[in-house]
């Protein structure tokens, strides 16, 4: 019966459902886009968040770590992660009559910060060097080759894997040596590879509180809070997008409300006849609410299909990985959009339906 009534005024029904289509499309698509953006962003940050990089604060004239600084750092990192002091510098690496500029790191525990692409990273780096892939490709060298750095020759123990993460220590253009090979073997920065983001931010907080109690001796770069803030921003962006889409659904609700109100006032006579021939109020109400619900469901289904097309288009047109675009965490947005669409349709159909059902048959028939 409800279906037949909707069929009767197809243009009007389609227009009303179109409102819901657009609303559902907007919520689902914007929700998923926002989520994909967030996923893609946090994916590219990867594990960055769990590193804390501490360095002496040049700005206030502190050029190197004091014993006490190192102690503070070690204490702060205790139970939270591993402390890796790094000596750093720049240098020219030569091999096979070619040369390449490289970022030199001096540490004897490279295993904490780096992983090997080929060869093996020793627990303690005593002799030999580890070379990043970009340097290795440039010089056409591999494990076992010899390289010359600042006049000294070293054998390559391992090639470093390119990290997926943004990190203060980038392995691509790095050459890792034992710290003793540096003229100044004092560490210029200390990296804490923390067990988790929470541990990282706790350690960072403790270092700031203890070492920097009197003046900003150390600069503490803690990426976890930055990543958290980025994630926070994205979820804010996401809510914002959904709210925006929600407005369009409210507009759709008003459209349905209007359509149902018009349709019931147009059908006063018909409703009057139904009531006169013995159709109960609740049956009239039910028919009209089902009409609104059908508009909502139809609009919702079409809206979801369109938003799937939109998300697929996003996948095709952008360099995003399928795993990000088709991530299961997108599903709640589709469900949310659909449910919201149907609820809006029902809610805005309810009052006109109730009004029509309670119309006095005599009044209704008067026209």
């Amino acid at each position, binding site marked *: 019966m409800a279906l037949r009534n909707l069929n009767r005024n197809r243009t009007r029904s389609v227009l009303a459902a179109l409102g819901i289509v657009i609303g559902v499309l907007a919520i689902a698509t914007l929700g998923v886009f926002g989520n994909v953006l967030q996923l893609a962003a946090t994916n590219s940050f990867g594990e960055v968040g769990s590193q804390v990089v501490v360095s002496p604060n040049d700005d206030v004239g502190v050029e190197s770590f004091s014993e006490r600084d190192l102690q503070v750092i070690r204490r702060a990192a205790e139970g939270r992660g591993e402390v890796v002091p790094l000596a750093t510098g720049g240098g020219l690496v030569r091999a096979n009559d070619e040369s390449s500029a490289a970022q030199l790191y001096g540490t004897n525990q490279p295993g904490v910060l780096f992983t090997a692409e080929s060869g093996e990273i020793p627990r303690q780096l005593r002799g030999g060097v580890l070379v990043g892939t970009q340097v290795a490709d440039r010089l056409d060298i591999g494990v076992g080759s010899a390289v010359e750095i600042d006049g000294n020759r070293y054998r390559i123990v391992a090639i470093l894997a390119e990290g997926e993460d943004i990190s203060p220590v980038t392995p691509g253009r790095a050459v890792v040596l034992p710290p003793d090979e540096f003229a100044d073997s004092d560490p210029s920065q200390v990296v804490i590879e923390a067990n988790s983001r929470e541990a990282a931010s706790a350690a960072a907080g403790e270092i700031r509180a203890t070492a920097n109690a009197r003046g900003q001796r150390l600069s503490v770069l803690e990426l976890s809070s930055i990543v958290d803030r980025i994630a926070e921003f994205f979820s804010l962006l996401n809510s914002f997008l959904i709210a925006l889409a929600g407005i369009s659904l409210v507009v759709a609700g008003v459209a349905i409300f209007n359509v149902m109100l018009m349709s019931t006032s147009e059908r006063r006579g018909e409703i009057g006849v139904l009531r006169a*021939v013995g159709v109960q109020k609740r049956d009239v109400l039910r028919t009209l609410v089902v009409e609104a619900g059908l508009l909502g469901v139809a609009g919702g289904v079409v809206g979801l299909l369109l938003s799937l097309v939109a998300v697929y288009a996003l996948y095709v047109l952008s360099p995003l990985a399928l795993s990000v675009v088709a991530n299961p965490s997108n599903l709640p947005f589709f469900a949310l959009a659909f449910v919201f669409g149907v609820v809006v349709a029902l809610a805005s159909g309810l009052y006109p339906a109730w009004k029509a059902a309670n119309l006095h048959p005599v009044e209704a028939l008067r026209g």
Partner: protein
Amino acid sequence: MSTRERTRPSLELRNTVKEYDGGGETVRALADVDFSVAPGEFVAVVGPSGSGKSTMLNTLGLLDVPTSGTVRVAGRDATTMTDPERTRARREYVGFVFQQFYLIGNLTALENVTLPTVYHDDPDAEERARTLLDRVGLGDRHDHTPDELSGGQKQRVAIARALVNGPDVVLADEPTGNLDRDTGEQVLGEFAQVTERGVGLVAVTHDPQVAEFADRTVRIVDGRLTEASGEAANLSREVEPP
């Protein structure tokens, strides 16, 4: 008249008063009306505009509740019924025919006739509707929509719709008001056939033609009912008992 006295009335108004609140003053649309219609009886209700004709029909048809007095349907007092009960009683005992026909535009004649039955499990409703349409002479119009039918055909569809639930009484509000004289006469002929099957019929009308077909005509003026002897003289047709 003797038929009416022997049989229990299908619908009955007793001391019925209906008052409206019209802009501060009370309008008395029905003043102490006694009226009844017997099975198979065709009653015409005539009177000037605003005399209370429609109010009387609405009250008889359980669409409106009287201010005081009683409305009896099939021997039961309808004034104490709840709205769902009255709605149910309308479905079981009363059929309506309106001046504007009130057929639903995109439904076929057959679907329009079955309309009063669609909300209930009624497997042979369609069969009854077909029989009724055949009986009112629309055997070849079952699948036509109202805009493919003439005024008289529409009103005959409406009559079939009024009869589909097997009512005791059909109430008609200006049934010939939108029809020309010849078509009106055909519709009144249908009414006559309806009453021959034992269904009571009350027609509210301005149309003297209706009164010609009626067994009895009552006149209502300012909410008061009088037997209109002039028009009511037409008792030539026999009323067959059910």
